[in-house]
Structure formats: structure tokens, C-alpha cells
């Protein structure tokens, strides 16, 4: 019974909405005055309506624009009054009055039409809203308004931005507003003086936004004339046939300016000739004769003489026209004084950018060098110290990386899994290295070429086994969250944390190597055995054991390097072979048997590759090719590497 009563009351309410709406409020009247345009809702004609609202000075105008933009404005079909509304469900609205934001009531949506502005109109409304948002009490709204201006600045924004400066309380937002105000002044400043001052205030600023604001000022249009005009908005003089202006483009320019006869493309010429074939002849020339370009030119000229086709310029005419005209750039982006200021500012910015880019490139090169060093340090032990060519070294790196991948399958926490994976990778590859040394390498200590081939056999077997187990697709080895992102120094220089981590790891390895080789008993014995195994054996050192441990140590380090490289690149069964030649190069270039040499070698290879890439950024393959060629030549002139061992150690 009670429910029934409630139902009735709802029905009553729906039937008779409260009529408390203030039809004569100024805002409502303003909307009414523009209602035709609003209801028409066309992007082309909506401008005045939005302007009227935005410039009305009424505080409620912001709400209207806001609700309009978010499609929450409705119109009462009967009275023509505008309201904003929340949709309670498909058929029911809770409507509000624009005048004071008071709720009018809950009504059925039958009597109301939703105003649905299209995206173009919403964009216009958004622009108009910016001036309100710039002074909005909510700092986030202000930030968003600034974002909107940065995305698409307009002339009207400048005044709004200046007006909002005085009332700004937040320090960071104020700084941002001031910067944006100067940027907008560059583009829309009223006087040249004002613009030049704004430009000069950015001298040496690395921000991308500054360059984006300055570059349009330097926009040029290529023009042609018989003589170079005397004007101060003339830029460079261009030579037809140069890189900036090809001969075809230059001539096209003349044709468009009606300074020369048009040319005809070979394609069009051919079609014109085909159209004029009659009795197997074109203008009296046998079709069969037209198998060379000069014959076709002649035939076309003959046709032009007859008047059947439009005459076109011959090559000689083209040459003559091009020689008689001068081609130059005219600045169309800004008045000449502003252009000069912008050029100066850009020049100083470019110098600074170049400096920073060099620095950034060096960081890149350094991190590449660390990767090569990591890949090569195991080899520096097995190949450098022991003289064993291990072609399966790359596969030890791969085994380390796959160990990391398997660990991550079992331990979902990335930080913990990496901490577990590193010692485990060392253990796995240490074991593999010891097994390989015992089973294969020790029988071939004096036969490096056979070692090369046998370890190559192991390498292809290991690669194929990895392929059989893990499949051919790349497996991810995910870095912990705190290694995500990058250290951003400015808009140009940044380096990802993972590269920093690899760099640090490379330094750690260097320290570890130096410590083990110079400060431990194992290192002493290793050096003794590699220098003179018989003497070492007479001193009570077991060379077999030392060789085994050394090889295991080198392989284990390769395993850890594998984890690090896996974090940086994908884990595949072929990742080892990607590094093996470069690793050997690194060791050989640096000088066999010297860890500092390996360090220098890796640095050289890394910097060299990045340097070559800088000349030809789109082509890493070319960079690698040239780098290898360079190394081949380098070895011709320093066959023993950068740091060559001297004396007895060199013969051991």
C-alpha cells in the first residue's frame, strides 16, 4: 500500500515538474538570445554564440560552457528554456537551473532535448573555457588549462593568460604561466619590440617548446625573380640544382609564376604521341623510329609546330630560363627585425643543443660500451688470461639470461627474482663452464684452432637445445619497477635507469675482476699457471684445478652478464651469437691478457659505433659494418691491441 502511494507521488512529480526555473535571469536571457545558433549546432556558425557567452562577464557563463561541452545541457521543448541535467536513468533527468545552480526537480526526459555539440564545437568551447579555467580556484584545473594552451595556442589566450597572472598564488603554476606568456608573446605579441624582448629572454633555453615557438617565425617561401629584390625580408639565395632546390623544383616555380613555358613529363609526352598516331606515323615520323628520346622530342616538336599539342620548353630553354632568374627565400613568418632576433636566439639555442646532444651521445656510447664490456669480460678471462677461444661464450650469456627468465616464472616479485637470478645464473654457467673445460677444452689446450671449432660445435648444440626448450620467440626478462623510467636532465639529455644499472654493474665487474686477480690466492695461482704452467706445478699449484676454476669463473661472469643483457634486450636463443664477434673484437682490440685493454676496447667500440650512428642515424646495420671494417683496419696497424703485453708475459 505504501509502495503504491510512493509510485503515485513519483508519477505526479513526473507529470508536473516544478516551474521554479528563473526565466528572466541574465544568463538565461543571454542563452535565449543565442538559442538559434546553439540549437543549429554547426561548427561554422557557432562562433558568435560562444563568444557572447565567454565575453558576457557573467560568472555563470563558465558553467554553461562547461555543461555544454560535456553534453549535459538540455533544452525544454515547450518553453525553450535551457537547463543542465544529470541522467538518472535512461528516461529520467534531474534538472538544474543555470541561474543559481539550484535543483529544479526530477523529470522525464520526454519534454527535453539534449544539446549534442560535435567535436569541432567542443574544441571551440574548450578554447573559450580556458580563460575561466586559468583563474579557477582548483590548481589542477588551472594546470589543465595551461596544458590546453600548450597543445593549441591562440591569440586570445595571450590576453587571458596575462589577466590571470596577477591573481595566481601557486608558485609553480605562476612560473609556468609566465613562461607560457612569453612563448605566446613571441607568436602573438602586439609590437615587434615586445616580441623581440620575449625572444631574447629565451637565449640558450633548451626547451622543445621554445624551438617550436621560434621555428615558425623563420618560415620562408621560395621565390624567383629576374634580379634579386632589395628588401630586408630576403633570406638566402638558392642555386637551382642544389640540395635545397632541385632544378625541377626551381623550374616548376618559374612555371607557376608564369615566368616560363611548362615542361612535359616523359609519360605525358608519350601519351600525347600515342594520341597522335595516324597511319603508323606521328607527324610524319614512322612509329618504329620513335625508340629513342631524341626521336620522340623531335616528333613532339613537329606536332607542336602543327599546333596539335601545346608547345613545351626544350632542355635548352629550361637551362636558359633557370640561368636568367635568381631564386631566393623570403621570410613570411614574421617581420624582419623579429626574424633577426629569432635567428640569433635559435643560433644560441642550437649551439647549446649540439653541446647537450654530444653529451647525450656520450652517455649512450658509454652505456653501449658497458654492455660490450659486460659481454666481453668473461672472454677477457677465458680468452685473455687463459688463451682459450670459447665460441660458446655467447651461449653462456644466453644461458644466464634464460636462467633469469626461468627464475621469474617461479618468483613473481621482480626485485627478488633478479637478486635470486644473479647468483643462480653464475652457478649454472659456472657449472657448464667447468663441465666444458673438463670434457673438451683441456684436451685441446695447445690447439686453439681445434678449440675454436669444438667450442663452436658446443655453441650450435646449446643454441638449438635452447630453441627446443624455450621456442624461437623472444622471452621477456622484466626489470624491477624501480629500474623503469629514465633520469631526465633536460629536454635533450636523459638516460634510462637500466642503462645506469648496467654501467654500475660493469664497474662492479671490473672491480671484482681486479680484486680476484690481484688480491686473492686464486688470482695469484691463475697468473702463475698462465705464465708458466710447469713452474707453477713445481711450486705445488695444481694447474688442472686452476684452469678449471678460471674457466668456470669466466663462464659464470658471462652468465651474470646474460641476466643484465636480458633486462636490456629480449632473451632469445640467438642473443649470444649477436654479441660473440663484437666481444672477441673488444678483447682483441683492447689487447689480449689485460683487463684495462678490454675496458678501453669496449669503450672504443661503443663510442665508435654510436659515433658512426650519429652520422647516419637511420642505419644501425651500416654503423656495425663500418665499425667492423674499422676494427679490421685497426688490427692491421696494432695487431696486439691497444695495450700490448710486453716481455715474457707476451709469449706465455
Amino acid at each position, binding site marked *: 500500500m505504501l509502495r503504491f502511494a510512493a509510485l503515485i507521488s513519483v508519477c505526479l512529480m513526473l507529470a508536473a515538474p516544478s516551474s521554479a526555473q528563473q526565466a528572466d535571469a541574465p544568463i538565461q536571457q543571454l542563452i535565449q538570445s543565442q538559442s538559434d545558433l546553439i540549437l543549429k549546432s554547426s561548427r561554422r556558425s557557432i562562433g558568435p554564440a560562444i563568444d557572447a557567452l565567454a565575453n558576457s562577464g557573467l560568472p555563470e557563463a563558465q558553467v554553461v560552457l562547461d555543461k555544454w561541452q560535456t553534453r549535459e545541457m538540455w533544452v525544454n521543448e515547450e518553453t525553450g528554456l535551457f537547463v543542465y541535467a544529470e541522467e538518472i536513468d535512461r528516461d529520467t533527468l534531474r534538472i538544474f537551473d543555470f541561474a543559481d545552480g539550484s535543483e529544479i526537480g526530477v523529470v522525464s526526459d520526454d519534454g527535453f532535448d539534449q544539446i549534442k555539440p560535435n567535436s569541432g564545437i567542443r574544441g571551440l568551447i574548450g578554447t573559450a573555457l580556458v580563460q575561466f579555467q586559468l583563474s579557477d580556484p582548483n590548481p589542477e584545473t588551472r594546470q589543465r588549462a595551461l596544458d590546453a594552451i600548450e597543445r593549441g595556442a591562440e591569440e586570445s589566450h595571450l590576453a587571458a593568460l596575462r589577466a590571470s597572472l596577477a591573481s595566481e598564488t601557486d608558485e609553480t603554476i605562476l612560473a609556468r604561466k609566465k613562461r607560457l606568456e612569453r612563448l605566446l608573446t613571441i607568436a602573438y605579441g602586439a609590437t615587434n619590440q615586445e616580441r623581440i624582448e620575449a625572444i631574447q629572454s629565451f637565449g640558450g633555453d633548451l626547451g622543445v617548446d621554445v624551438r617550436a615557438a621560434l621555428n615558425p617565425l623563420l618560415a620562408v617561401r621560395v621565390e624567383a625573380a629576374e634580379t634579386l629584390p632589395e628588401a630586408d625580408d630576403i633570406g638566402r639565395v638558392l642555386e637551382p640544382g642544389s640540395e635545397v632546390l632541385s632544378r625541377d623544383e626551381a623550374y616548376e616555380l618559374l612555371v607557376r609564376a608564369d615566368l616560363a613555358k611548362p615542361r612535359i613529363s*616523359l609519360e605525358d609526352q*608519350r601519351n600525347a*604521341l*600515342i594520341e597522335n*598516331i595516324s597511319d603508323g606515323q606521328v607527324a610524319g615520323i614512322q*612509329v*618504329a623510329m*620513335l*625508340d*629513342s*628520346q631524341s626521336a*620522340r622530342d623531335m616528333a613532339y616538336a613537329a606536332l607542336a609546330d602543327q599546333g596539335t599539342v601545346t608547345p613545351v620548353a626544350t632542355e635548352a630553354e629550361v637551362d636558359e630560363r633557370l640561368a636568367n632568374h635568381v631564386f631566393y627565400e623570403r621570410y613570411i613568418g614574421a617581420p624582419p627585425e623579429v626574424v633577426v632576433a629569432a635567428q640569433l636566439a635559435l643560433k644560441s639555442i642550437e649551439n647549446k643543443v649540439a653541446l647537450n646532444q654530444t653529451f647525450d651521445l656520450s652517455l649512450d656510447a658509454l652505456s653501449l660500451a658497458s654492455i660490450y664490456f659486460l659481454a666481453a669480460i668473461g672472454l677477457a678471462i677465458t680468452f685473455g688470461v687463459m688463451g682459450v*677461444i670459447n665460441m660458446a661464450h655467447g651461449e653462456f650469456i644466453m644461458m644466464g639470461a634464460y636462467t633469469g627468465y626461468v627464475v621469474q616464472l617461479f618468483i613473481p616479485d621482480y626485485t627478488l627474482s633478479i637478486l635470486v637470478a644473479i647468483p643462480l645464473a653464475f652457478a649454472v654457467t659456472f657449472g657448464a663452464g667447468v663441465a666444458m673445460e673438463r670434457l*673438451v677444452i683441456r*684436451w*685441446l689446450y*695447445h*690447439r*686453439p*684452432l*681445434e678449440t*675454436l*671449432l*669444438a667450442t*663452436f*660445435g*658446443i*655453441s*650450435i*648444440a*646449446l*643454441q*638449438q*637445445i635452447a*630453441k*627446443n626448450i624455450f621456442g624461437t620467440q623472444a622471452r621477456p626478462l622484466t626489470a624491477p619497477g624501480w629500474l623503469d623510467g629514465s633520469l631526465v636532465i633536460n629536454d635533450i639529455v636523459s638516460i634510462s635507469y637500466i642503462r645506469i644499472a648496467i654501467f654500475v654493474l660493469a664497474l662492479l665487474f671490473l672491480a671484482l675482476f681486479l680484486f680476484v686477480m690481484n688480491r686473492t690466492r686464486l688470482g695469484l695461482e691463475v697468473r702463475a699457471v698462465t705464465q708458466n704452467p710447469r713452474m707453477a706445478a713445481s711450486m705445488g699449484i695444481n694447474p688442472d684445478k686452476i684452469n678449471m676454476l678460471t674457466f668456470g669463473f669466466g663462464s659464470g661472469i658471462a652468465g651474470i652478464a646474460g641476466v643484465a643483457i636480458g633486462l636490456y634486450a629480449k632473451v632469445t636463443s640467438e642473443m649470444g*651469437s649477436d654479441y660473440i*664477434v663484437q666481444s*672477441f*673484437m673488444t678483447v*682483441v682490440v683492447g689487447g689480449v691478457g689485460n683487463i684495462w685493454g678490454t675496458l678501453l676496447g669496449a669503450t672504443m667500440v661503443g663510442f665508435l659505433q654510436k659515433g658512426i650512428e650519429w652520422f647516419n642515424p637511420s*642505419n644501425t*646495420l*651500416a654503423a*656495425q*659494418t663500418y665499425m*667492423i*671494417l674499422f*676494427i*679490421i*683496419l685497426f*688490427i*692491421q*696497424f696494432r*695487431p696486439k691491441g691497444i695495450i700490448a703485453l710486453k716481455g715474457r708475459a707476451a709469449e706465455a
Partner: protein
Amino acid sequence: MTEVALPRRQPFALRFPSVMVFLAILALFTVGVTILSEGFGIGVISTSFVKTLGKTLCLCLVALAMDLVWGYCGILSLGHMAFFGLGGYAIGMWLMYARTEIIVLESLAAAPLPPTPQEVSDGIATQIFGVVGASEFPPIWAFAHSLPLQLAAVVIVPGLLALVFGWLAFRSRVTGVYLSILTQAMTLALSLHLFQNDSGLRGNNGLSGLQNLPGLSEVPQSIVSMWFFWGSALALALGYILCAWVVSGKFGSVIRAIRDDEARVRFLGYPVETFKLVIFTLTAVIAGIAGALYYPQAGIINPAEIAPIASIYLAVWVAIGGRGRLYGAVIGAAFVSLLSTWFTGGQAPDINLGFYTISWVDWWTVLLGLSFVGVTLFAPKGIGGLVDILIDQKSPNRHGADLGPDQGALREQEADK
């Protein structure tokens, strides 16, 4: 002064019976395949298998070159498959150009106007380089229209590369593993270069359609394959005779001595670098010719064929066959590559272990790798060693010492007299 009567030298054939045996077997094999082929015989052997056999003969030829440079001269070159590939590219350029030219001329013949030379050239360039987004001939195609010039390139390009590289490397006395790594780097650089689209050789698409001989489109592949088979057999025979001749005389003794003890040969007054350079260049040329015969049978060549791993496989074949004996290289290349085709072609029966099925397509490489380790460790003579057992040839007892101090020197077990 009295004339000292030198002992009359025996004829070549009698001094080297193995050459005659080899040539006889090769001739028998060629005749046999011809009789069994589809093109000229009773059709027991399919055309594709004839091509496989023809390709195998080319691989035997390049293995022969590898044996000469590694087994006889001690230079473990990991670059000979690059020379092989270069030969293939050289002939492939002509094949592709000439065939495309015919197609373009046919399509232009229907046009109302006779084509100008420029139109023909543009048409061919668009056909060939469309896949890499270019439509102009790169400079290295300047001679592609001419068969004689490209045939010369088959010999000159690998030869010149080997000459320059070898001169640089031998002059600065790079030997042993360093030389191997250096040749490997050269191979890697070359393949990386060819992988680029702007290398002018269609990047990683490579050259394709090489099995179709220009102007002979009506000749069936069963006949063409036999022509190439005969060509390959002839090249192998000539190559074998050439290699046998090179290693037989005084020259051969010098290069074997360089292999075992380079320093001693140098102190005896021989220009070691020149000898090495001659061998290195000669083998590169042989490899180039082998490649030029191989790729028209394969039908396609791309930079992956030049990757360093291919050259290492070449060393593997020679080692498995037995280095330092010419027939060993041939046996190794034929045996391993045919076995490889059999296993990877999915013809080998899988082994079901109950819990796991060994599929040879996946596990053949593992078996090859490990058997290679086994050969290196336990049977340095390779398959060729079986011949020694057959003719009861004993190895010398050198108390475990190698034939010389150099890295390429033969091991005691490998020495044959």
C-alpha cells in the same frame, strides 16, 4: 762437368692414384645420376633431388678450397662462404637482370610506341628494386647486362677481396685464431652490409628466381638441372685436379711447411706472405666459382647465406671429412650436407622415448654440434681416416708432438706418413 741424369719423373696420374680414383668415381656418379634422372634417363631421381646433388657437388668444391687453405696452408679462414656468396651474387645479378629484361621487353612490346632505352632500364629497375622501395639501378649493377662481365666478376670480386684482405692481414703477421676472428669479422661486415636495403642488392630479400635461365624459359627444369649438375661435376673435377696439382709439387711442400712451422720457412728464405696470399686468393676464386654454380640451382640467394655461421659449417665439413687430404674435404661436405638435408627435411624417423619424442628436425643440429666435438677430440682424421685403415697406412709415432709449433700444424694423429 758431366750432366747429372735426373731421375725421370713419373706421370702425374701415377704419382697420385687418389686423383684418378676420385675422378673415376665422380664420372661414374655423374653417368649414374644422368641415367636415373628425369631429364635424360629413366626418371628414378626427381628433379629436385638432382638439384640437391648438383648443389652438393658445388659444396664439395668450396670444401676443397677450404681444405687447401686450412688443411694444407694452416689458415683457418672463416670467410670462404662469403667468397662463395659473392660468386653467387655476381651471377645472380646477371640472371635476374636478363630475365627481368625479357619480361619488361615483352610487356613494352604491346605498347603503341617502341620503348626507349631509358624506359626499358627504368622498367627493369622498378621490377627488381620495387621490393626495397627504389626504382633506379645502383652503380654496382653497371655490368649486370653483360654475361661475360658478370662471369668475370664471379672470379674477380672474390679474388680481389681476398687479395686485399689477405695482403693486409698477412703483411701485419696476423696468424692463428686472430686471423680466424678477423676473417669472421670480415664475413659479418659483408653480410651486415648486404642486409641493408641501400646496399643495392635488395637487402634481405636477396636475389630470387635464379633457377630460370633467361631466354630458355621453354626448357624444362628437369633438363636445366642436369646441365647445372654436369657443370658442377666438371667444375669439381677440374678443381680437384687443380688442387691436387697445386699441393703436389714444390709449391705444395712449401705451403705444408708454412702450415706446420711458418717461422722456419721464413728463415729458409721463402716469401711466406706471398705463398699464403696466393693460396688465399686462389681458394677464394674457387669458392666464388662454386657459388656461381650453386645459387642458380638453389634459385635464391640472400645475405643470411653469407652469415659467419655458414663459413664455420664449411670448416666443420672439412674437419669431419678429414683435413689435409683433398678427398676428405669432398667426403665431408657431401656426407654432412646430404645427411643434413635428410634430417632437416623431415625424412628421418622420429625417435619416441615414451616421455619425449626426439624430432630430428629440431635435434639434428644438436647431434651435428656434438658429433663435431667428438670428431675433433677422438678422430682428428675424420672420415678420411677410414681410408688409411683400408690401405693400411700407419701414422708416425711422434710421441704426442704436433708436426710443428704453429696453431694450424697437423696433429700427430692427422699426419699420414
